[in-house]
C-alpha cells in the first residue's frame, strides 16, 4: 500500500514535469522551425534589405517587408490607443464604483465578447465599421476612402482586444487590498485620489502586463483585421488608406503563390518576424513590470 502511494506520488511528479517541459519547448520548436524554413531568403538577402526595403515584387525577386511591418505597427498602435482608455476607465469604474450586480453582469458581457470568433468580428467590421469609416469619418476629415483602411483595422482590433485587457485589469484591481484603500481614505484622500495614488500605483505591474498581453495579441491578430484593412502593399501615414499587416500577408498567400521562387521562405520569414516582435513586446513589458515594482 505504502509502495503504491509512493509510486503514484513519483509518477504524478514526472507527468507534471513532462507537461511543463512540452510547454517550455513549444516556442523554441516553433522558432527554430520558422528560422530554418526562412533560411534560404535570409542567406540570399541582407537583413537590412529585407526589413527596410519597401519594394514587394516577389515575381521579380524583390522582398521588402517594410510596408507590412509599418502596417502592422500602425494598426496595433491605433487599436491600442482606442482600447486602453476605454478599458482603464471601465475597469476602475467596475472595481471601485459599480454595484456588485453590474460587475457580475459585465463579467458575462466580457466573456461573451471574448468568445466571439474573430471571423464574426471581421464580418461586423465589413458591415458596420468599413461603411462608417468610408462614408462618415473620412468625409468629416475631408479625405476620400472606401473604408477598407488601417483605421478600420485599428477599430475592429480595439474591440477585439477590449475583453482581454479589461478582464485582466479587473483582476488586477481586485487584488489591491481594501486596507490600502482605507489607509489612503483615512488620510483624507478623496475616492479619485485614492484610485490615483494607491490603486493605480499598487496595480501598476498588473496594468502593464494587461496592456502588454493586449498589445501582443493585437499585433498577431489576423483574420478580422485582414477582412477590413484593404490588403494593399502601401506605406502611408494616412489612416484612411489601406494597409497590409504581416499576419494578413501570411494568411492571404501561404499555399497559393508558392510557385514563385523563395516566396515560401519569405512567408516563413514573415512568421519568424512576427514571433520575434511578439517576443520583444513581452520582454519589454516584463522589464517594465520589473522596473515598476521597484520604488
Amino acid at each position: 500500500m505504502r509502495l503504491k502511494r509512493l509510486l503514484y506520488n513519483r509518477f504524478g511528479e514526472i507527468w507534471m514535469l513532462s507537461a511543463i517541459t512540452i510547454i517550455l519547448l513549444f516556442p523554441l520548436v516553433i522558432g527554430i522551425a520558422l528560422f530554418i524554413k526562412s533560411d534560404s531568403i535570409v542567406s540570399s538577402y541582407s537583413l537590412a534589405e529585407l526589413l527596410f526595403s519597401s519594394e514587394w515584387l516577389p515575381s521579380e525577386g524583390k522582398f521588402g517587408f517594410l510596408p507590412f511591418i509599418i502596417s502592422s505597427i500602425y494598426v496595433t498602435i491605433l487599436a491600442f490607443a482606442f482600447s486602453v482608455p476605454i478599458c482603464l476607465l471601465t475597469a476602475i469604474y467596475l472595481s471601485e464604483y459599480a454595484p456588485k450586480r453590474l460587475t457580475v453582469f459585465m463579467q458575462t458581457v466580457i466573456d461573451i465578447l471574448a468568445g466571439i470568433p474573430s471571423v464574426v468580428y471581421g464580418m461586423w467590421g465589413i458591415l458596420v465599421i468599413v461603411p462608417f469609416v468610408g462614408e462618415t469619418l473620412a468625409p468629416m476629415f475631408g479625405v476620400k476612402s472606401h473604408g477598407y483602411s488601417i483605421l478600420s483595422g485599428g477599430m475592429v482590433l480595439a474591440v477585439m482586444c477590449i475583453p482581454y485587457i479589461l478582464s485582466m485589469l479587473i483582476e488586477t484591481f481586485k487584488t489591491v487590498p481594501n486596507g490600502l484603500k482605507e489607509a489612503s481614505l483615512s488620510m483624507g484622500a478623496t475616492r479619485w485620489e485614492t484610485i490615483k495614488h494607491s490603486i493605480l500605483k499598487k496595480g501598476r505591474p498588473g496594468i502593464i502586463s494587461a496592456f502588454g498581453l493586449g498589445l501582443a495579441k493585437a499585433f498577431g491578430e489576423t483574420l478580422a483585421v485582414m477582412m477590413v484593412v484593404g490588403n494593399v502593399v502601401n506605406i502611408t501615414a494616412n489612416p484612411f488608406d489601406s494597409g497590409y499587416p504581416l499576419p494578413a500577408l501570411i494568411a492571404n498567400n501561404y499555399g497559393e503563390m508558392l510557385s514563385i521562387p523563395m516566396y515560401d521562405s519569405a512567408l516563413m520569414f514573415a512568421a519568424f518576424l512576427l514571433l520575434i516582435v511578439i517576443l520583444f513586446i513581452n520582454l519589454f513589458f516584463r522589464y517594465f513590470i520589473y522596473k515598476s515594482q521597484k520604488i
Partner: protein
Amino acid sequence: MIITLNDTIMKEEKIQLDFAEKLDFETKNKQIPENPAVTISNLNVWASKHHILKNVELKIPKNKITVLLGPSGCGKTTLLKSLNRLTDLDKELYVSGNIFINDEEILHAKKDIPEIRRKMGLLSQKPYPLPVSIYKNMTYGFKLKGIRDKKLINYNVELRLKEVGLWEEVKDRLHSSPDKLSIGQQQRLCLARGLTVKPHIILADEPTSALDPTSSKIIEDLFKKMKNQYTIIVVTHVLRQAHRLADNVVFMSDGEIFEQGSPNKLFKNPETQELKKYLVDGN
C-alpha cells in the same frame, strides 16, 4: 434728533443685553457631557438582513484609551469604521443613528467626508504602507492638502517619525521602499503617516495582531504616551491587552454593548453573564 439717537443707542444696548442673557441661559442649559470626544447614539448597522450593530449608545472620553473588547465578529470593527465613515465603501451596509465628533454630527453629514476622515488616524490589523517610498508615505497627507513647503514637510516627517520612535531606524533609507521594513516598523510607519494630518482621534483595529510581542509592546507603549494628545480607540479581543492599555473598556458581544467602565471595575466585577463568560474563556 438727540432724543432719537439716544433711543436708538438704548435700544441697541437692550438688544445686546438680551442676547447675552439668552446666550448665558443657553450655555447653562445645554447638556454638556463629561467632555467626550465621540458620542454615539442609537447606532444601527445592517448588512442586508444581518443586524451587525444594535442600538449602540456610547460616549468615548477625550485623551483616554478606550478599548472595544469582544469576541471576533461581534461588530467591533464595524463600529470603528462607522466612526470615520469607511462603512460608506460597502454598499451593502445600511447605517442609521448619530455619531458626534466634538459635537459635530458626522454620520449624516453630506459635506466634506475626507475632512471628517482626516480627523481620525486609522491603524489596521496589518500595516498598509502605500506602494511608494517611506518618505512619500510620510508626505502623502501634505500632497493631498497641496502643501509644498519642503522645510515644513521635512520638519514634520522627522517629528512624526521620532514620535513613533522610527526616525533613527529609517533616516538613512527614507527613499527606499517600506516593504524592506519589518512588520512592526511598517505598523509604526503607518501610525506616523496618520499623525502627519494631525488627527484628533486614533482608531486602531487590532493593531498588534500581526506583530511579534516586542513590536506589540512598542505600539502599546506609544499609545500610552500619545494619549495626552490624542483620543485613542483600540479594538481588540485580547483580554490582557485590554488590561494593559485601557482607561475605559467597552465590552461588546453580538452587536451590542453589554458593559463599559474602567478595566478594574469591569474585570473584577463583571455584571453581565456575557462578560463573565468571556472573562472565564479568556483566562
